[in-house]
């Protein structure tokens, strides 16, 4: 186990170096994401300003909570973009084209290899901008930061980043079973788009079922914020942890069975 972790860390280091080598070959590949991600962030802020110029609250949350919420969602998205999105997003293509064969023949977990082979350093500024936004939200809300509050927020953000990854993986694991993914990724895009603007606390009825259980984007930034502003109760904490565990099991099972189900493509 210990040796395996050490090996994976060494592989991760080499994958990172290769990625940096690859990105520096074409200068636009290296500098482009800084510009694109920065622009997207500014657009999000402008949309947020436009909304809050007209309304005072969304659900029970005011502007301060919403800035904290938006910053947290933006942070989760930035971590996703930096570390695993570009690797995970390629899985259906690699399965369809048969390139996946080569990952199966290497003595390292194909999931690990695929997840970390396209790390994007260009998205790091997005993490920094998100952290600035979170700090600004905390200042507006005049929250007294304690070690417990910081630890709790970091814990919930970390496990929600794992959940974000797992939901992405569940959707893309279907490519191991189905030839066509029927643009299932678009459901993910729509879910993220909605939940980035509307916190889980403002969702009711069927929307709550969808975004708390089926595609749990509704809890991803909501729970860390609730932990920070003191709104989290035991029931919510148990639900959040349970959802992450459930998705971990579903992701692992879908992936493992998918590998057995994989039929490659004709040469």
């Amino acid at each position: 186990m210990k040796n395996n972790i050490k090996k994976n860390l060494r592989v991760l280091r080499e994958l990172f170096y290769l990625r940096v080598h690859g990105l520096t070959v074409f200068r636009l590949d290296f500098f482009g994401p800084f510009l694109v991600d920065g622009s997207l962030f500014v657009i999000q802020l402008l949309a947020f300003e436009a909304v809050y110029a007209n309304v005072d609250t969304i659900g029970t949350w005011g502007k301060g909570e919403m800035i904290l919420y938006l910053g947290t969602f933006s942070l989760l998205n930035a971590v996703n973009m930096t570390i695993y999105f570009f690797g995970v997003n390629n899985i259906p293509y690699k399965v369809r084209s048969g390139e996946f064969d080569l990952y199966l023949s290497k003595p390292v977990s194909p999931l690990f290899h695929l997840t970390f082979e396209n790390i994007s350093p260009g998205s790091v500024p997005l993490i920094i901008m998100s952290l600035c936004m979170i700090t600004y939200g905390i200042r507006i809300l005049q929250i007294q930061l304690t070690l417990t509050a910081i630890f709790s927020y970091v814990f919930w953000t970390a496990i929600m980043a794992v959940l974000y990854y797992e939901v992405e993986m569940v959707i893309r694991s279907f490519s191991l079973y189905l030839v066509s993914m029927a643009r299932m990724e678009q459901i993910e895009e729509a879910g993220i788009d909605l939940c980035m603007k509307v916190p889980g606390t403002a969702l009711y009825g069927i929307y709550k079922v969808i975004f708390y259980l089926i595609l749990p984007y509704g809890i991803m930034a909501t729970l860390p914020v609730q932990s920070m502003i003191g709104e989290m109760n035991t029931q919510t904490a148990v639900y959040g942890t349970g959802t992450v565990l459930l998705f971990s099991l579903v992701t692992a099972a879908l992936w493992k069975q998918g590998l057995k189900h994989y039929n490659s493509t004709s040469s």
Partner: protein
Amino acid sequence: MKRTVIETNHLVKTYRRYKKKEGIRGSLTGLWKREYEEKTAISQIDLSISEGEFIGLIGPNGAGKTTLIKMLTGIIAPTQGHLDVLGYYPNDLKNEFKKQYAVVMGQKSQLFFELTLNDTLRLFKEIYEISEEDFQKNKNYFVKLFGVEDLMDVQVRTLSLGERMKMELIAALLHNPKILFLDEPTIGLDAVASKQIRKFLKEINQKNGTTIILTSHYMEDIKALCKRTVVVNHGSKIYDGETQELFNRYQKNKKIIVTFDEQDMDITLKTPNAVLLENTLHKKIYKVSKRSAKDLLAELMEYDTKDIAVEEEEIGVIVERIYQEGSACHA
């Protein structure tokens, strides 16, 4: 006695494929009610391969060669039958097993096109957990063997197909695999590059004792490298024996391609059994029995030719002949 490294018994692989009815009506009906057919890609294959063997796996397109390689490497699972490679069931995908073989697919690259081979090899060093000392030793050995010292710091995308295949082989051999699976490694390569690759493979098999399983469409590859050949067609094994015997018994003709500077060269041949297959302005293609090939060549040399090439019969022709003469006693 050498140990068996690959053993299969009654190996079967079937796929289910959708049979779409013709026309728009058929397409719409297919949304609700579908007909599937079972396609047998591999049918009851028994195979036993010993350590250090160099085996040719041949057959026409769709015969099941690649499917067999994919099952032996664990990429896909068999539908039925027993499969043992180096003491493992390949589709368990155990890392200990994957460290002991390498696979090179002529149509799929494991290299990073924008990077150099040196960059890629560093990743492979960590993936295969090769010590720095062994890494340097193996790298230097293969780089020298393949004569690619000047290409190690060049972007892979700028290399020729032949150079790239050498790089693929270096990457595959870096961890000293016990078994090397090669799926069409010379596809698309010119005669010189193919010859070089063949030379290296021979050396690796003889010096390092690496077991090599080679699939190829080119009879020259098989003839030059493999002592034993397995012929598959429609998923079944129809020949398993010495390559020399295969060629002696089933390859009865040669193809001779002659090109001329002069247009419509008038040629009258005395060699018996020489059949003119193709006749264009500057080129003539003859089919002739192996025995008479020498006579025909001597006769053609008397004309003012630009070039003469001799080709082996294609795999499809040999497969057909094995069928005609009965395959049971060889498989």
